[in-house]
Protein backbone atom coordinates (compact mmCIF):
# COMPACT_ATOMS: atom_id res chain seq x y z
CA UNK A 1 0.00 0.00 0.00
CA UNK A 2 2.84 2.34 0.83
CA UNK A 3 4.24 1.71 -2.65
CA UNK A 4 0.88 2.66 -4.19
CA UNK A 5 0.60 5.84 -2.12
CA UNK A 6 4.14 6.82 -2.93
CA UNK A 7 3.61 6.28 -6.65
CA UNK A 8 0.11 7.63 -7.20
CA UNK A 9 1.40 10.06 -9.83
CA UNK A 10 3.01 7.19 -11.78
CA UNK A 11 -0.21 5.14 -11.63
CA UNK A 12 -2.27 8.14 -12.72
CA UNK A 13 0.08 8.81 -15.64
CA UNK A 14 -0.07 5.21 -16.79
CA UNK A 15 -3.87 5.18 -16.42
CA UNK A 16 -4.10 8.21 -18.66
CA UNK A 17 -1.97 6.76 -21.42
CA UNK A 18 -3.73 3.42 -20.99
CA UNK A 19 -7.05 5.11 -21.67
CA UNK A 20 -5.66 7.06 -24.62
CA UNK A 21 -4.54 3.80 -26.21
CA UNK A 22 -7.77 1.94 -25.47
CA UNK A 23 -10.47 4.43 -26.50
CA UNK A 24 -9.62 5.02 -30.19
CA UNK A 25 -9.54 1.29 -31.08
CA UNK A 26 -12.88 0.76 -29.29
CA UNK A 27 -14.40 3.59 -31.32
CA UNK A 28 -12.81 2.42 -34.58
CA UNK A 29 -13.95 -1.17 -34.03
CA UNK A 30 -17.50 0.01 -33.34
CA UNK A 31 -17.74 2.34 -36.35
CA UNK A 32 -16.12 -0.05 -38.83
CA UNK A 33 -18.16 -3.01 -37.61
CA UNK A 34 -21.44 -1.37 -38.68
CA UNK A 35 -20.87 -1.37 -42.46
CA UNK A 36 -19.00 -4.69 -42.28
CA UNK A 37 -21.87 -6.31 -40.39
CA UNK A 38 -24.45 -4.90 -42.82
CA UNK A 39 -22.39 -6.28 -45.68
CA UNK A 40 -22.01 -9.65 -43.97
CA UNK A 41 -25.77 -9.89 -43.39
CA UNK A 42 -26.57 -9.08 -46.98
CA UNK A 43 -25.21 -12.43 -48.24
CA UNK A 44 -25.53 -15.78 -46.51
CA UNK A 45 -22.15 -17.13 -47.55
CA UNK A 46 -20.45 -13.87 -46.59
CA UNK A 47 -21.87 -14.05 -43.10
CA UNK A 48 -20.37 -17.46 -42.45
CA UNK A 49 -16.96 -16.46 -43.75
CA UNK A 50 -16.97 -13.19 -41.80
CA UNK A 51 -17.79 -15.01 -38.58
CA UNK A 52 -15.07 -17.58 -39.20
CA UNK A 53 -12.49 -14.94 -40.11
CA UNK A 54 -13.35 -13.00 -36.97
CA UNK A 55 -12.85 -15.99 -34.69
CA UNK A 56 -9.56 -16.82 -36.39
CA UNK A 57 -8.38 -13.24 -36.01
CA UNK A 58 -9.12 -13.30 -32.31
CA UNK A 59 -7.14 -16.52 -32.02
CA UNK A 60 -3.90 -14.80 -33.11
CA UNK A 61 -1.74 -14.42 -29.98
CA UNK A 62 -1.48 -10.75 -29.11
CA UNK A 63 2.23 -10.38 -28.40
CA UNK A 64 3.36 -11.83 -31.77
CA UNK A 65 0.81 -9.65 -33.53
CA UNK A 66 2.19 -6.53 -31.82
CA UNK A 67 5.66 -7.56 -32.94
CA UNK A 68 4.78 -8.65 -36.48
CA UNK A 69 2.39 -5.85 -37.37
CA UNK A 70 5.10 -3.17 -37.88
CA UNK A 71 6.54 -5.33 -40.65
CA UNK A 72 3.17 -5.28 -42.37
CA UNK A 73 2.16 -1.65 -41.93
CA UNK A 74 5.58 -0.03 -41.63
CA UNK A 75 5.39 1.45 -38.14
CA UNK A 76 7.72 1.04 -35.19
CA UNK A 77 7.01 -1.68 -32.62
CA UNK A 78 6.39 0.90 -29.88
CA UNK A 79 4.54 3.33 -32.11
CA UNK A 80 1.07 4.21 -30.79
CA UNK A 81 -0.27 3.55 -34.27
CA UNK A 82 0.99 -0.02 -34.15
CA UNK A 83 -0.83 -0.64 -30.88
CA UNK A 84 -3.95 1.13 -32.15
CA UNK A 85 -4.13 -0.96 -35.34
CA UNK A 86 -3.58 -4.23 -33.50
CA UNK A 87 -6.22 -3.41 -30.88
CA UNK A 88 -8.66 -2.27 -33.57
CA UNK A 89 -8.24 -5.62 -35.31
CA UNK A 90 -9.03 -7.50 -32.11
CA UNK A 91 -11.94 -5.18 -31.50
CA UNK A 92 -13.30 -5.82 -34.98
CA UNK A 93 -12.93 -9.56 -34.53
CA UNK A 94 -15.31 -9.30 -31.56
CA UNK A 95 -17.52 -6.53 -32.82
CA UNK A 96 -18.37 -7.58 -36.39
CA UNK A 97 -20.18 -10.81 -35.41
CA UNK A 98 -21.88 -8.94 -32.54
CA UNK A 99 -23.07 -6.19 -34.89
CA UNK A 100 -24.26 -8.75 -37.43
CA UNK A 101 -26.33 -10.36 -34.65
CA UNK A 102 -27.57 -6.92 -33.61
CA UNK A 103 -28.91 -6.07 -37.06
CA UNK A 104 -30.50 -9.49 -37.38
CA UNK A 105 -32.24 -8.96 -34.04
CA UNK A 106 -34.28 -6.07 -35.47
CA UNK A 107 -37.86 -7.04 -36.24
CA UNK A 108 -38.33 -7.07 -40.00
CA UNK A 109 -42.01 -6.18 -39.65
CA UNK A 110 -41.01 -2.95 -37.96
CA UNK A 111 -38.58 -2.16 -40.77
CA UNK A 112 -41.27 -2.91 -43.35
CA UNK A 113 -43.66 -0.66 -41.50
CA UNK A 114 -41.07 2.14 -41.41
CA UNK A 115 -40.69 1.84 -45.17
CA UNK A 116 -44.45 1.94 -45.58
CA UNK A 117 -44.61 5.16 -43.54
CA UNK A 118 -42.22 6.76 -46.01
CA UNK A 119 -38.73 6.48 -44.49
CA UNK A 120 -36.08 6.80 -47.19
CA UNK A 121 -33.38 4.08 -46.97
CA UNK A 122 -30.73 6.19 -45.20
CA UNK A 123 -33.18 7.68 -42.72
CA UNK A 124 -34.61 4.25 -42.04
CA UNK A 125 -31.14 2.94 -41.21
CA UNK A 126 -30.15 5.85 -38.97
CA UNK A 127 -33.48 6.45 -37.25
CA UNK A 128 -35.00 3.00 -37.05
CA UNK A 129 -32.63 0.12 -37.70
CA UNK A 130 -29.58 1.46 -35.85
CA UNK A 131 -31.40 2.45 -32.65
CA UNK A 132 -33.33 -0.83 -32.60
CA UNK A 133 -30.06 -2.77 -32.99
CA UNK A 134 -28.72 -0.61 -30.12
CA UNK A 135 -29.17 -2.96 -27.17
CA UNK A 136 -27.31 -5.84 -28.88
CA UNK A 137 -24.69 -3.42 -30.26
CA UNK A 138 -24.13 -2.10 -26.75
CA UNK A 139 -23.60 -5.63 -25.42
CA UNK A 140 -20.93 -6.08 -28.12
CA UNK A 141 -19.23 -2.76 -27.37
CA UNK A 142 -19.04 -3.62 -23.67
CA UNK A 143 -17.14 -6.82 -24.44
CA UNK A 144 -14.86 -4.98 -26.87
CA UNK A 145 -14.19 -2.24 -24.28
CA UNK A 146 -13.23 -4.62 -21.49
CA UNK A 147 -11.17 -6.80 -23.82
CA UNK A 148 -9.32 -3.81 -25.29
CA UNK A 149 -8.52 -2.32 -21.90
CA UNK A 150 -7.09 -5.65 -20.86
CA UNK A 151 -5.11 -6.09 -24.11
CA UNK A 152 -3.47 -2.66 -23.82
CA UNK A 153 -1.36 -4.08 -20.98
CA UNK A 154 0.45 -6.34 -23.49
CA UNK A 155 2.03 -3.19 -24.91
CA UNK A 156 3.69 -2.78 -21.53
CA UNK A 157 5.90 -5.76 -22.27
CA UNK A 158 7.17 -3.92 -25.34
CA UNK A 159 7.74 -0.80 -23.31
CA UNK A 160 4.72 1.20 -24.43
CA UNK A 161 3.55 3.15 -21.36
CA UNK A 162 0.33 1.74 -19.88
CA UNK A 163 -0.82 0.09 -16.67
CA UNK A 164 0.87 -3.02 -18.07
CA UNK A 165 4.23 -1.34 -17.28
CA UNK A 166 3.39 -1.71 -13.56
CA UNK A 167 3.48 -5.47 -13.61
CA UNK A 168 6.39 -5.66 -16.04
CA UNK A 169 8.33 -3.31 -13.77
CA UNK A 170 6.99 -4.99 -10.63
CA UNK A 171 8.14 -8.41 -11.74
CA UNK A 172 11.53 -7.13 -12.75
CA UNK A 173 12.11 -5.31 -9.48
CA UNK A 174 10.26 -7.85 -7.30
CA UNK A 175 7.73 -5.34 -5.95
CA UNK A 176 4.56 -7.33 -5.26
CA UNK A 177 2.50 -4.21 -4.52
CA UNK A 178 3.35 -2.78 -7.92
CA UNK A 179 2.23 -5.99 -9.70
CA UNK A 180 -1.01 -6.00 -7.70
CA UNK A 181 -1.56 -2.30 -8.38
CA UNK A 182 -1.23 -2.88 -12.12
CA UNK A 183 -3.79 -5.67 -12.10
CA UNK A 184 -6.26 -3.90 -9.81
CA UNK A 185 -6.01 -0.61 -11.70
CA UNK A 186 -6.63 -2.34 -15.03
CA UNK A 187 -9.68 -4.16 -13.70
CA UNK A 188 -11.03 -0.98 -12.10
CA UNK A 189 -10.54 0.95 -15.31
CA UNK A 190 -12.39 -1.74 -17.28
CA UNK A 191 -15.25 -1.72 -14.78
CA UNK A 192 -15.44 2.07 -14.89
CA UNK A 193 -15.62 2.19 -18.69
CA UNK A 194 -18.19 -0.61 -18.67
CA UNK A 195 -20.35 1.29 -16.18
CA UNK A 196 -20.08 4.45 -18.30
CA UNK A 197 -21.19 2.50 -21.38
CA UNK A 198 -24.21 1.13 -19.53
CA UNK A 199 -25.15 4.64 -18.43
CA UNK A 200 -24.67 5.95 -21.95
CA UNK A 201 -26.92 3.17 -23.26
CA UNK A 202 -29.66 4.06 -20.81
CA UNK A 203 -29.40 7.71 -21.80
CA UNK A 204 -29.59 7.20 -25.56
CA UNK A 205 -32.02 4.24 -25.51
CA UNK A 206 -34.67 5.36 -23.05
CA UNK A 207 -37.21 2.84 -24.35
CA UNK A 208 -35.12 -0.07 -23.05
CA UNK A 209 -35.43 0.98 -19.43
CA UNK A 210 -39.16 1.58 -19.29
CA UNK A 211 -40.21 -1.89 -20.37
CA UNK A 212 -42.75 -3.74 -18.34
CA UNK A 213 -44.66 -0.85 -16.81
CA UNK A 214 -47.84 -1.77 -18.67
CA UNK A 215 -51.02 0.11 -18.09
CA UNK A 216 -53.79 -1.90 -16.49
Amino acid at each position, binding site marked *: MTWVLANLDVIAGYTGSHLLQALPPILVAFLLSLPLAKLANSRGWLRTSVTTTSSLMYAIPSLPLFVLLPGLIGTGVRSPLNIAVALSLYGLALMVPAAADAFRSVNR*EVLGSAT*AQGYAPRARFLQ*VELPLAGPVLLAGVRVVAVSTISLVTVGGVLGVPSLGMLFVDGVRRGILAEIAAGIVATVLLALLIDALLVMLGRAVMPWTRRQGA*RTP
Partner: protein
Amino acid sequence: MIGFENVRKEYPGGTLAVQDFSLEIASHESVVLVGTSGSGKTTLMRMINRMVDPTSGRVHIDGDDVTSLDPVQLRRSIGYVMQASGLLPHRTVLDNITTVPVLRGTAKREARTHAHELMEIVGLDAALAERYPSQLSGGQQQRVGVARGLAADPNILLMDEPFGAVDPIVRAELQRELQHLQRDLRKTIVFVTHDIDEAFLLGDRVAILRPGGIIAQVGTPQEILADPADDFVSSFVGADRGARTLHVERVDGRDVVVDADGRPAGVLAASGDRSAGEGAADGRTRERSS
Protein backbone atom coordinates in the same frame (compact mmCIF):
# COMPACT_ATOMS: atom_id res chain seq x y z
CA MET B 1 -59.64 6.58 -57.37
CA ILE B 2 -57.38 3.53 -57.36
CA GLY B 3 -57.23 1.23 -60.37
CA PHE B 4 -55.68 -2.18 -60.88
CA GLU B 5 -55.27 -3.15 -64.55
CA ASN B 6 -54.35 -6.73 -65.35
CA VAL B 7 -51.87 -6.83 -62.51
CA ARG B 8 -49.61 -9.84 -62.20
CA LYS B 9 -46.98 -10.59 -59.58
CA GLU B 10 -44.46 -13.35 -59.87
CA TYR B 11 -41.70 -13.70 -57.31
CA PRO B 12 -38.20 -14.85 -58.24
CA GLY B 13 -38.29 -18.60 -57.86
CA GLY B 14 -41.57 -18.87 -59.69
CA THR B 15 -44.14 -18.23 -56.94
CA LEU B 16 -47.16 -16.70 -58.58
CA ALA B 17 -48.76 -14.41 -56.00
CA VAL B 18 -51.22 -12.70 -58.34
CA GLN B 19 -52.23 -13.98 -61.75
CA ASP B 20 -54.32 -11.31 -63.39
CA PHE B 21 -56.15 -8.84 -61.19
CA SER B 22 -58.26 -5.88 -62.23
CA LEU B 23 -60.38 -3.73 -59.94
CA GLU B 24 -61.43 -0.09 -59.66
CA ILE B 25 -61.82 1.47 -56.26
CA ALA B 26 -63.76 4.71 -56.19
CA SER B 27 -62.73 7.68 -54.07
CA HIS B 28 -64.23 7.66 -50.55
CA GLU B 29 -65.14 4.02 -50.95
CA SER B 30 -64.00 1.32 -48.57
CA VAL B 31 -63.13 -1.93 -50.28
CA VAL B 32 -62.17 -5.05 -48.37
CA LEU B 33 -59.96 -7.68 -49.97
CA VAL B 34 -60.73 -10.92 -48.21
CA GLY B 35 -59.16 -14.31 -48.74
CA THR B 36 -57.15 -17.04 -47.09
CA SER B 37 -53.36 -16.90 -46.97
CA GLY B 38 -51.94 -17.27 -50.45
CA SER B 39 -54.77 -15.29 -51.99
CA GLY B 40 -52.36 -12.44 -52.72
CA LYS B 41 -54.47 -9.89 -50.84
CA THR B 42 -51.58 -8.27 -48.96
CA THR B 43 -49.42 -8.29 -52.09
CA LEU B 44 -52.17 -6.46 -53.97
CA MET B 45 -52.57 -3.86 -51.24
CA ARG B 46 -48.81 -3.26 -51.09
CA MET B 47 -48.77 -2.50 -54.80
CA ILE B 48 -50.74 0.66 -54.07
CA ASN B 49 -47.89 2.23 -52.04
CA ARG B 50 -45.17 0.48 -54.04
CA MET B 51 -44.00 -1.80 -51.28
CA VAL B 52 -44.38 -4.32 -54.08
CA ASP B 53 -44.15 -3.52 -57.79
CA PRO B 54 -46.20 -5.66 -60.19
CA THR B 55 -44.39 -7.92 -62.66
CA SER B 56 -46.78 -6.71 -65.31
CA GLY B 57 -49.95 -4.64 -65.44
CA ARG B 58 -50.60 -1.21 -63.99
CA VAL B 59 -51.71 0.28 -60.71
CA HIS B 60 -52.85 3.88 -60.87
CA ILE B 61 -54.03 6.47 -58.39
CA ASP B 62 -56.18 9.27 -59.80
CA GLY B 63 -54.85 8.46 -63.26
CA ASP B 64 -51.15 8.43 -62.33
CA ASP B 65 -49.30 5.18 -62.80
CA VAL B 66 -47.76 4.58 -59.36
CA THR B 67 -44.49 3.40 -60.91
CA SER B 68 -44.07 6.93 -62.26
CA LEU B 69 -44.21 8.33 -58.70
CA ASP B 70 -41.36 8.51 -56.20
CA PRO B 71 -41.99 5.62 -53.80
CA VAL B 72 -40.92 7.50 -50.66
CA GLN B 73 -43.13 10.52 -51.42
CA LEU B 74 -45.99 8.22 -52.44
CA ARG B 75 -45.83 6.28 -49.16
CA ARG B 76 -45.89 9.50 -47.15
CA SER B 77 -49.12 10.45 -48.90
CA ILE B 78 -50.87 7.16 -48.09
CA GLY B 79 -51.87 6.07 -44.58
CA TYR B 80 -50.73 2.58 -43.68
CA VAL B 81 -52.02 0.64 -40.69
CA MET B 82 -50.83 -2.84 -39.85
CA GLN B 83 -50.73 -5.24 -36.94
CA ALA B 84 -49.30 -4.12 -33.60
CA SER B 85 -45.70 -4.91 -34.51
CA GLY B 86 -45.77 -2.06 -37.00
CA LEU B 87 -45.31 0.64 -34.37
CA LEU B 88 -41.76 1.84 -33.84
CA PRO B 89 -40.88 0.31 -30.45
CA HIS B 90 -38.26 2.96 -29.66
CA ARG B 91 -40.60 5.90 -30.15
CA THR B 92 -43.24 7.15 -27.78
CA VAL B 93 -46.92 7.10 -28.72
CA LEU B 94 -46.78 10.76 -29.67
CA ASP B 95 -43.63 10.32 -31.78
CA ASN B 96 -45.15 7.32 -33.51
CA ILE B 97 -48.23 9.31 -34.44
CA THR B 98 -46.18 12.24 -35.73
CA THR B 99 -43.90 9.99 -37.83
CA VAL B 100 -45.28 10.84 -41.25
CA PRO B 101 -45.97 14.57 -40.73
CA VAL B 102 -42.42 14.99 -39.39
CA LEU B 103 -41.01 13.06 -42.37
CA ARG B 104 -42.98 15.41 -44.59
CA GLY B 105 -41.42 18.41 -42.90
CA THR B 106 -44.27 19.60 -40.68
CA ALA B 107 -42.96 21.56 -37.68
CA LYS B 108 -42.67 19.26 -34.69
CA ARG B 109 -44.81 21.39 -32.41
CA GLU B 110 -47.62 21.60 -34.92
CA ALA B 111 -47.46 17.86 -35.56
CA ARG B 112 -47.63 17.19 -31.83
CA THR B 113 -50.66 19.41 -31.32
CA HIS B 114 -52.41 17.60 -34.14
CA ALA B 115 -51.31 14.23 -32.69
CA HIS B 116 -53.01 15.08 -29.41
CA GLU B 117 -56.24 15.76 -31.30
CA LEU B 118 -55.88 12.46 -33.13
CA MET B 119 -55.36 10.60 -29.88
CA GLU B 120 -58.67 11.95 -28.70
CA ILE B 121 -60.39 11.04 -31.97
CA VAL B 122 -59.23 7.42 -31.81
CA GLY B 123 -60.07 7.17 -28.12
CA LEU B 124 -56.63 7.24 -26.51
CA ASP B 125 -56.12 8.76 -23.07
CA ALA B 126 -53.82 11.80 -23.29
CA ALA B 127 -51.80 10.33 -20.39
CA LEU B 128 -50.48 7.67 -22.78
CA ALA B 129 -48.71 10.19 -25.02
CA GLU B 130 -45.23 9.62 -23.59
CA ARG B 131 -45.52 5.85 -23.22
CA TYR B 132 -43.69 3.38 -25.43
CA PRO B 133 -45.69 0.86 -27.50
CA SER B 134 -44.61 -2.06 -25.29
CA GLN B 135 -46.32 -0.34 -22.37
CA LEU B 136 -49.71 -0.35 -24.09
CA SER B 137 -52.38 -3.03 -24.43
CA GLY B 138 -52.99 -4.58 -27.84
CA GLY B 139 -56.11 -2.49 -28.37
CA GLN B 140 -54.31 0.72 -27.45
CA GLN B 141 -51.49 -0.13 -29.85
CA GLN B 142 -53.99 -0.55 -32.66
CA ARG B 143 -55.52 2.82 -31.86
CA VAL B 144 -52.07 4.38 -32.08
CA GLY B 145 -51.64 2.61 -35.43
CA VAL B 146 -54.87 4.11 -36.73
CA ALA B 147 -53.96 7.57 -35.44
CA ARG B 148 -50.57 7.30 -37.16
CA GLY B 149 -52.24 6.25 -40.40
CA LEU B 150 -54.46 9.33 -40.25
CA ALA B 151 -51.82 11.81 -39.07
CA ALA B 152 -50.86 13.24 -42.46
CA ASP B 153 -54.53 13.41 -43.46
CA PRO B 154 -54.07 11.06 -46.45
CA ASN B 155 -56.78 10.49 -49.02
CA ILE B 156 -56.03 6.79 -49.05
CA LEU B 157 -55.78 4.51 -46.04
CA LEU B 158 -54.35 1.01 -46.42
CA MET B 159 -55.20 -1.35 -43.59
CA ASP B 160 -53.41 -4.71 -43.46
CA GLU B 161 -55.30 -6.95 -41.00
CA PRO B 162 -55.03 -4.14 -38.45
CA PHE B 163 -57.25 -5.80 -35.86
CA GLY B 164 -55.99 -9.34 -36.32
CA ALA B 165 -53.92 -9.46 -33.14
CA VAL B 166 -56.47 -8.26 -30.58
CA ASP B 167 -59.14 -10.21 -28.70
CA PRO B 168 -62.66 -10.41 -30.15
CA ILE B 169 -64.25 -7.88 -27.79
CA VAL B 170 -61.62 -5.23 -28.44
CA ARG B 171 -61.72 -6.05 -32.15
CA ALA B 172 -65.47 -5.45 -32.29
CA GLU B 173 -64.97 -2.12 -30.52
CA LEU B 174 -62.20 -1.05 -32.91
CA GLN B 175 -64.27 -2.07 -35.93
CA ARG B 176 -67.22 -0.04 -34.68
CA GLU B 177 -65.03 3.00 -34.12
CA LEU B 178 -63.47 2.66 -37.55
CA GLN B 179 -66.98 2.69 -39.02
CA HIS B 180 -67.75 5.90 -37.15
CA LEU B 181 -64.46 7.45 -38.20
CA GLN B 182 -65.05 6.57 -41.82
CA ARG B 183 -68.50 8.12 -41.68
CA ASP B 184 -66.85 11.46 -40.86
CA LEU B 185 -63.58 11.20 -42.77
CA ARG B 186 -64.70 9.45 -45.96
CA LYS B 187 -61.23 8.17 -46.87
CA THR B 188 -60.61 5.75 -49.68
CA ILE B 189 -59.93 2.63 -47.64
CA VAL B 190 -58.40 -0.61 -48.84
CA PHE B 191 -58.71 -3.14 -46.06
CA VAL B 192 -57.21 -6.62 -46.07
CA THR B 193 -58.51 -9.39 -43.83
CA HIS B 194 -59.17 -13.13 -43.77
CA ASP B 195 -62.28 -12.60 -41.62
CA ILE B 196 -65.41 -12.48 -43.77
CA ASP B 197 -67.50 -10.99 -40.96
CA GLU B 198 -65.04 -8.12 -40.61
CA ALA B 199 -65.14 -7.70 -44.40
CA PHE B 200 -68.95 -7.51 -44.47
CA LEU B 201 -68.98 -5.09 -41.54
CA LEU B 202 -66.41 -2.63 -42.89
CA GLY B 203 -66.59 -2.86 -46.68
CA ASP B 204 -68.82 -0.80 -48.92
CA ARG B 205 -67.73 -3.46 -51.35
CA VAL B 206 -66.01 -6.74 -50.68
CA ALA B 207 -63.75 -8.64 -53.07
CA ILE B 208 -63.48 -12.34 -52.22
CA LEU B 209 -60.20 -13.71 -53.53
CA ARG B 210 -59.20 -17.22 -54.51
CA PRO B 211 -55.54 -18.27 -54.32
CA GLY B 212 -53.49 -16.33 -56.87
CA GLY B 213 -55.49 -13.13 -56.51
CA ILE B 214 -58.38 -14.31 -58.63
CA ILE B 215 -61.59 -12.49 -57.81
CA ALA B 216 -64.26 -15.04 -56.94
CA GLN B 217 -66.84 -12.31 -56.45
CA VAL B 218 -66.88 -8.60 -55.87
CA GLY B 219 -69.90 -6.64 -54.69
CA THR B 220 -71.66 -5.16 -51.70
CA PRO B 221 -72.06 -7.52 -48.73
CA GLN B 222 -75.77 -7.67 -49.49
CA GLU B 223 -75.18 -8.70 -53.10
CA ILE B 224 -72.72 -11.38 -52.10
CA LEU B 225 -74.99 -12.81 -49.42
CA ALA B 226 -78.07 -12.67 -51.63
CA ASP B 227 -76.41 -14.18 -54.67
CA PRO B 228 -73.11 -15.99 -54.07
CA ALA B 229 -71.35 -16.43 -57.40
CA ASP B 230 -70.33 -20.03 -56.82
CA ASP B 231 -69.68 -22.76 -54.25
CA PHE B 232 -66.35 -21.20 -53.27
CA VAL B 233 -68.07 -17.96 -52.27
CA SER B 234 -70.93 -19.80 -50.56
CA SER B 235 -68.52 -21.79 -48.47
CA PHE B 236 -66.38 -18.70 -47.75
CA VAL B 237 -69.29 -16.65 -46.44
CA GLY B 238 -70.73 -19.63 -44.57
CA ALA B 239 -73.92 -19.85 -46.61
CA ASP B 240 -73.32 -23.54 -47.27
CA ARG B 241 -73.26 -24.26 -43.52
CA GLY B 242 -76.57 -22.56 -43.02
CA ALA B 243 -74.94 -19.85 -40.94
CA ARG B 244 -76.37 -17.19 -43.23
CA THR B 245 -79.84 -18.69 -43.64
CA LEU B 246 -81.89 -17.24 -40.86
CA HIS B 247 -85.50 -17.76 -39.92
CA VAL B 248 -87.70 -16.37 -37.21
CA GLU B 249 -89.10 -18.36 -34.28
CA ARG B 250 -91.60 -16.94 -31.84
CA VAL B 251 -90.45 -17.25 -28.19
CA ASP B 252 -92.32 -15.61 -25.30
CA GLY B 253 -93.93 -13.13 -27.59
CA ARG B 254 -90.64 -12.02 -29.18
CA ASP B 255 -89.26 -12.90 -32.59
CA VAL B 256 -85.99 -14.81 -32.19
CA VAL B 257 -83.80 -15.14 -35.28
CA VAL B 258 -82.33 -18.63 -35.62
CA ASP B 259 -79.86 -19.98 -38.18
CA ALA B 260 -80.20 -23.27 -40.10
CA ASP B 261 -78.49 -25.24 -37.32
CA GLY B 262 -80.99 -23.90 -34.81
CA ARG B 263 -78.46 -21.57 -33.17
CA PRO B 264 -80.17 -18.40 -31.97
CA ALA B 265 -78.61 -15.46 -33.78
CA GLY B 266 -80.51 -12.61 -32.18
CA VAL B 267 -83.85 -11.01 -31.58
CA LEU B 268 -85.76 -9.34 -34.34
CA ALA B 269 -86.12 -5.67 -33.52
CA ALA B 270 -89.64 -4.29 -33.47
CA SER B 271 -90.08 -1.82 -36.30
CA GLY B 272 -90.07 1.06 -33.77
CA ASP B 273 -86.65 0.40 -32.19
CA ARG B 274 -84.83 -0.61 -35.36
CA SER B 275 -82.99 2.66 -35.71
CA ALA B 276 -82.07 2.85 -32.05
CA GLY B 277 -80.66 -0.65 -32.01
CA GLU B 278 -78.60 -0.03 -35.14
CA GLY B 279 -79.46 -3.39 -36.60
CA ALA B 280 -79.14 -5.40 -33.42
CA ALA B 281 -80.20 -8.66 -35.04
CA ASP B 282 -77.78 -7.96 -37.82
CA GLY B 283 -74.85 -7.48 -35.44
CA ARG B 284 -75.54 -10.64 -33.49
CA THR B 285 -75.69 -12.71 -36.64
CA ARG B 286 -72.14 -11.80 -37.32
CA GLU B 287 -70.87 -12.62 -33.86
CA ARG B 288 -72.46 -16.05 -33.82
CA SER B 289 -71.63 -17.11 -37.30
CA SER B 290 -67.92 -16.48 -37.10
